[in-house]
């Protein structure tokens, strides 16, 4: 019996030690688990702006990426006002969750599930504006639900969508499309199908769009 208690103490000590070690060490980001890829449904990303706009800018973005958040909150409002609202540009958002981010794919699914209820861009804005979730490393599920509630989503439908990973195939198809186009990091931009190498600043986009629209005229 004494040997049995020694075994128990050893198991408890080893297990407790592992848990303590895990809680002390800074968690390094790891790839999200593989997602079952459904057949692509032909979806090519949510867009902002007129279908008749002469220029299309496709953005490959990752909701957990800090540069994407900075772009979405600082540059994008100006781009929306100056280029999208004026009918010059149609903006296409493509998911490119990086494998080094634990929750970016989950965030992409949340945005897609909001999109199912017609509120993709509202969720997009919320995910980037409330970006503290990406810095804490904590499970953001509760926060995402709060954001979903905040923008007026039907939570039962949202939960059902998230639980079934309904749009995992779309997200994966978007990643594969980006990889095929040579996307290496986020955010990456393609202007009328050509890779954009400039700065991710609204002024630079405006200058490029102005030069391109002059050519169109």
């Amino acid at each position, binding site marked *: *019996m004494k040997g049995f208690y020694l075994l*128990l103490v050893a198991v408890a000590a080893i297990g407790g030690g592992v848990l303590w070690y895990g809680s002390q060490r800074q*968690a390094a980001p790891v790839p999200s688990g593989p997602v079952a890829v459904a057949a692509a449904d032909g979806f090519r990303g949510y867009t902002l702006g007129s279908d008749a706009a002469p220029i299309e800018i496709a953005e490959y973005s990752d909701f957990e990426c800090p540069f994407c958040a900075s772009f979405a909150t600082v540059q994008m409002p100006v781009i929306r006002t100056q280029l999208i609202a004026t009918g010059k540009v149609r903006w296409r958002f493509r998911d490119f969750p990086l494998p080094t981010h634990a929750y970016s794919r989950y965030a992409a699914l949340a945005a897609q599930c909001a999109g199912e209820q017609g509120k993709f861009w509202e969720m997009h804005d919320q995910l980037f504006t409330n970006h503290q979730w990406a810095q804490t*490393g904590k499970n953001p599920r509760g926060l995402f639900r709060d954001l979903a509630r905040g923008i007026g989503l039907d939570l039962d439908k949202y939960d059902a969508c998230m639980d079934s990973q309904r749009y995992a195939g779309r997200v994966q198809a978007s990643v594969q499309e980006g990889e095929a186009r040579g996307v290496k990091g986020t955010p990456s931009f393609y202007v009328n199908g050509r890779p954009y190498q400039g700065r991710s600043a609204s002024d630079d986009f405006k200058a490029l769009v102005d030069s391109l629209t002059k050519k169109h005229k």
Partner: protein
Amino acid sequence: MIRRQAIVLLTLVGLLVATYLWLYKIGVLGELKCGTGSCEYVQSSRYAELFGLPVALYGVAGYAALLALGLAGLQPRFAADRRVSVLLAAFATVGFGLTLYLTAIELFVLHAICRWCVASAVIMTATWLLSIADLRRARATTP
């Protein structure tokens, strides 16, 4: 006695697994070591909470109760006590029922498997079988 020893050992491991999942859930651990499983996804789903509390916390409480009962049952004065066997079987049955429910959710609703949840399910199933065997033995030896 060997059954109760096995129950104690199993529930200790189960307690460690549940504690690991609970620490992740409350944000103490930044990530789950999951290999090729879908731990993050399962743990992020709405089914990872029950009545507003993390399911893993129920696991911690359940395994801790079973461990305490098992340890008590190993003491000489309780070794032949049928009440310990009844309580062990009752707690293990509740745990086994919850395990069946959660495994069904993984398989048929989420279509995703969390390795740690599978480990806990195996531990709880073995604990339940052992507790039933212990109860049957206690019945058989009761005068």
